[in-house]
């Protein structure tokens, strides 16, 4: 009998999640007896995700792996799923601990926080002002990373973080916010956008403002979407973990938990196929891998993959 694993994403159509879906299918093929249900709401709302999860509960899927639009709002519904015997994990964007068995972080938050500011600092030998362009006001992961970034900002004394704005993961709003940043801070040297939508919009805004070379855009993005901006010089470098690996790992974990082959408890280790294994911390959270940095030297190699 096949194990049905539902991969619930923030919204359908986003490149990052499409790549994760690829990874999930890869894991399914490797495991053999797995059927992947790839689903999600049309726009990034918690209510939409709840409707989707309700229908998954009704179908009695074996596992749900969700990248949440809202840390807390999904909890009651996911609890119900667990009550009905469904394995629930979150990945990428987490759910509060009561609402899932474990959470798979793409990477550890402190690592990401450090990486994004380091990327900015690396290209600012004399230092200067940098600003942050975040995603929606409600998405958890971005805000955790920015928090972590601010914690370690002292390690980069030359770099001064002057402000944070929100682009809501909308291309036009992010673009406008990036423009606003450049006007508000004429001496701005870099924009850090830890969101794949924001980083592209910011790079475009910098290009349109004719400030390539003056303002460096960095953060987290997809190689395929950033390739052009790396070549134009709007972005010297950026980082991301591999979303394919992330979808792959989430599927592996969900499978092992659903089969009862592993237990989600602090300190447990769970095998994740070709990626090795993860170890759960006190919050039942695990980190997959370090973020990987892309620049002109390696972008072409990856831009065709994801």
């Amino acid at each position: 009998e096949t194990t049905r694993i539902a991969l619930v994403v923030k919204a359908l159509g986003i490149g990052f999640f499409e790549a994760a879906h690829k990874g999930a299918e890869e894991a399914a093929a490797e495991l053999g007896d797995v059927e992947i249900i790839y689903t999600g709401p049309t726009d990034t709302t918690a209510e939409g995700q709840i409707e989707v999860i309700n229908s998954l509960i009704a179908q009695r899927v074996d596992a749900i792996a969700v990248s949440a639009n809202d840390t807390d709002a999904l909890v009651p519904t996911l609890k119900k799923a667990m009550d009905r015997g469904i394995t629930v994990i979150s990945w990428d964007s987490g759910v509060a601990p009561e609402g899932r068995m474990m959470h798979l972080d793409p990477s550890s938050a402190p690592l990401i926080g450090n990486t994004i500011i380091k990327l900015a600092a690396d290209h600012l030998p004399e230092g200067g002002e940098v600003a942050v362009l975040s995603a929606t006001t409600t998405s958890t992961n971005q805000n955790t990373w920015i928090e972590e970034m601010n914690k370690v900002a002292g390690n980069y004394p030359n770099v001064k973080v002057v402000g944070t704005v929100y682009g809501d993961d909308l291309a036009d709003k992010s673009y406008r916010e990036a423009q606003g940043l450049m006007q508000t801070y004429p001496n701005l040297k870099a924009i850090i956008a830890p969101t794949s939508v924001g980083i592209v919009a910011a790079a475009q805004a910098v290009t349109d403002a004719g400030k390539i070379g003056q303002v460096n855009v960095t953060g987290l993005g997809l190689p395929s979407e950033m390739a052009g901006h790396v070549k134009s010089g709007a972005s010297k470098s950026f980082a991301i973990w591999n979303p394919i690996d992330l979808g792959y790992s989430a599927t592996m974990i969900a499978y092992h938990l659903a089969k009862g082959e592993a237990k989600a408890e602090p300190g447990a280790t769970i095998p994740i196929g070709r990626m090795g294994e993860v170890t759960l911390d006190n919050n039942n959270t695990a980190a997959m891998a370090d973020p990987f940095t892309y620049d002109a030297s390696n972008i072409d190699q990856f831009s065709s993959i994801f």
Partner: protein
Amino acid sequence: MSILKSRETILALAIAALLAAVASRFPGFVAPANLAGVFTDTSPLILLALGQMAVILTKCIDLSVAANLALCGMAAALMNGAGVPLPLILLAVVALGAGLGAVNGLLVWKLGIPSIVVTLGTMTIYRGAIFLMTGGAWINAHQMSEGFKAFPRAVIGGLPVMAWIAVAGVAGVALLLTRTPLGRAFYAVGGNPHAAVYAGISVGRTQFAAFVLSGALAGLTGYLWVARYAVAYVDIAGGFELDVVAACVIGGIAIAGGSGTVAGAVMGALFLGIIKNALPVAGISPFWQMAISGTAILAAIAFNAASRREPGRIILRQAEAAE
């Protein structure tokens, strides 16, 4: 006429006051280059507001403009990916937009379905169609040709093409509304549909024409939007239809139809555009933006209602003399 004029004057004064307030904290905002940038940024809103205005004049409303824009934008991006030359793409998006507008128009005209219902329905259908076209995939900057992206940005005489297109749109629609029979028919149909029939004007056909105009402008804006932000996906310009209606309302276009000017619609759009651009610059938390534009809308409605209130017939000689 004098009341009408004063309404636009007051709106212009409000915009000037807004600019002055921002400038007092941040002089760079009113530098000509930046103002040009704000105008360019507001161009999509202006273009859509022009079309929406025509529709509202005829006592209808078009809630599907943003979805139409997104669909045409995606079509433009797909055509570009397929190697279609830019001039053809431009023609095609305008035609596609007009076609989508015509669907709305036909449902309103031939079946007499209220426009709010029609466009509420087509709004979701058009967006859904994008999903069906692409499976939900995004089209990103690197998948677009340079020429495709460069056209709206190309600067001519200090302004990018995108802004010039808005200027041309404003001039064209202004001419259409004031100096052509069709334009006057928009006003007639909205002002008194019953009388329009007596004047030999087909109410349905005129509303149809307004929807086609609104659709064509949305189609054109769809290309501009996608090329400017260099990305196309299902949800672009989500919820933008309400901004467009708000721009018209602030600009004094009567929601009951039949009255309003191009100058008003443009200034309504600029007012919203300036607020949107000024907030991040003036260092006001972006979380205030929504409440501020809501307040602006309410203030504008209240003001317009007060100025539109009929002064009352003056029967009394004495009252007349006293005034």
